[in-house]
């Protein structure tokens, strides 16, 4: 391992970290703008041109707020909670292939921090971990609303992970690999997995909504029943971290969905483009395409949030266990049978 390799990876990590933070920051702005447009309003438009500096103003506000740590809370865990939420939200980006490799001066630079051969499992593990931030925060607050919310978050995540895992299994039957890089390369051009796994994709996106605690599955933050949910007791930037982590989660799950089902950085006609614009610009166009897909998903997340009312808790459990899980199992079986038949003939 030479020093340039370390520097190269370090720069890549820094860039990806920076990009995900900026995207999360502007997601808060986009969320308010999208909400406003969907409701025939204008949204924030006072800070800077068209309200562009609103996220900065919000961040500043969060920092300036008084920080309150309740006396009866478990102080150590109370502080760990938001950090953990941020950490688990950020590390998911490590295995996502952001583009095909760039060749600069004879050196091939892959636009992926690490291509571990069990990338899908890694993503899955990180997603499961993300509930710890919520759990620890809710428990450490020593507040019944927070605790209820944490329990809800945990049971919701566990329930939907099952269906999510099963829908991924069907995908893996199609792709024959666990490495995200190879999954993306298998979807060259327009051979996107969503064409082979439409049901699997619908199941996955529903589960992704549940895993990121977004509406209509935002029961842990259900204001009508639980005040603020798990972050009731949080203030200042700790609260900011929780809100921020939600947006990073949204970004990461959008990236995962684009990668697994929508061909990542592949787009129809990419070979022609790659041939004509060279080995640096070509992959970067692919990256731009990937980001376009991610933004489309983020927009979809917001669009759904401002359309559908929240599920009731029993409906949530019913949907998770009695609808999504059987469907996912059926999807696995059908996929298996179809693949067996196709291979036979």
């Amino acid at each position, binding site marked *: 391992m030479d020093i340039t390799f370390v520097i190269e990876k370090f720069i890549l990590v820094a860039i990806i970290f920076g990009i995900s933070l900026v995207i999360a920051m502007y997601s808060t702005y986009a969320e308010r703008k999208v909400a406003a447009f969907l409701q025939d309003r204008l949204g924030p438009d006072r800070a800077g041109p068209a309200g562009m500096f609103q996220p900065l103003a919000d961040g500043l506000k969060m920092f300036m707020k008084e920080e309150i740590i309740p006396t009866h809370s478990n102080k150590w865990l109370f502080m760990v909670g938001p950090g953990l939420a941020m950490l688990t939200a950020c590390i998911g980006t490590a295995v996502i292939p952001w583009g095909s490799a760039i060749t600069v001066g004879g050196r091939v630079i892959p636009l992926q921090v690490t291509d571990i051969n069990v990338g899908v499992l890694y993503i899955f593990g990180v997603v499961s971990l993300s509930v710890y931030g919520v759990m620890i925060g809710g428990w450490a607050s020593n507040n019944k609303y927070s605790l209820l919310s944490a329990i809800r978050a945990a049971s919701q995540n566990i329930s939907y992970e099952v269906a999510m895992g099963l829908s991924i299994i069907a995908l893996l039957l199609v792709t024959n690999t666990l490495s995200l890089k190879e999954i993306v390369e298998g979807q060259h051009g327009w051979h996107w997995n969503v064409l082979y796994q439409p049901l699997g994709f619908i199941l996955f996106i529903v589960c992704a909504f549940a895993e990121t605690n977004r509406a209509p599955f935002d029961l842990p933050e259900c204001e009508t029943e639980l005040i603020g949910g798990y972050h009731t007791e949080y203030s200042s930037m700790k609260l900011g971290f929780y809100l921020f982590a939600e947006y990073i989660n949204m970004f990461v799950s959008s990236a995962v969905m684009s990668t697994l089902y929508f061909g990542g950085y592949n787009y129809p006609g990419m070979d022609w483009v790659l041939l004509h614009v060279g080995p640096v610009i070509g992959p970067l166009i692919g990256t731009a395409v990937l980001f376009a897909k991610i933004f489309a998903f983020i927009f979809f997340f917001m669009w759904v949030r401002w*359309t559908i009312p929240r599920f009731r808790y029993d409906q949530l459990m019913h949907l998770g266990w009695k609808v999504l899980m059987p469907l996912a199992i059926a999807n696995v079986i059908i996929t298996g049978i179809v693949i067996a038949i196709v291979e036979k003939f």
Partner: protein
Amino acid sequence: MEPLTSKKKVLIQKPLTFAERIYLPALTKGLSITISHFFKKEATIRYPEVQREMSINWRGMHSLKRDEDGRERCTACGLCALSCPAEAITMIAAERKPEEKELYREEKYASVYEINMLRCIFCGLCEEACPKEAIYLDGPIVPSDYLRKDFIYGKDKLVEQPLVKK
């Protein structure tokens, strides 16, 4: 027990149809409704810069009127204060001196006239009560402020600007 009305209606909860149970048709319908609003013109008025047109019987800030010679019309009779349901008006009357004939129309005038804009409900009863047609609620929206005392408007803010003599 006998039913109390003949309008009794037995409510039957219909089981959800398959299309309703899979949520997706309703979901796409909802999504298409919201997205159609995405492209509609917003109803927002950017308030301080743009102002909505007021109706002709709009009641805003009070103004104390002058007559055609530029003299204050108010005679400090107190009828406005009496009629005010919010008790927002106070005044101190004074007698006009001979050299002040140019300033006040009547022999008695209000040396102090104050309206507390935080109390006022803009009902317009003061306008109706006034026998001298001295007070009208024809001004703009009362602006916001930081301190309660700044909402007590005296004659400096209420009395109309004098006519410019040519």
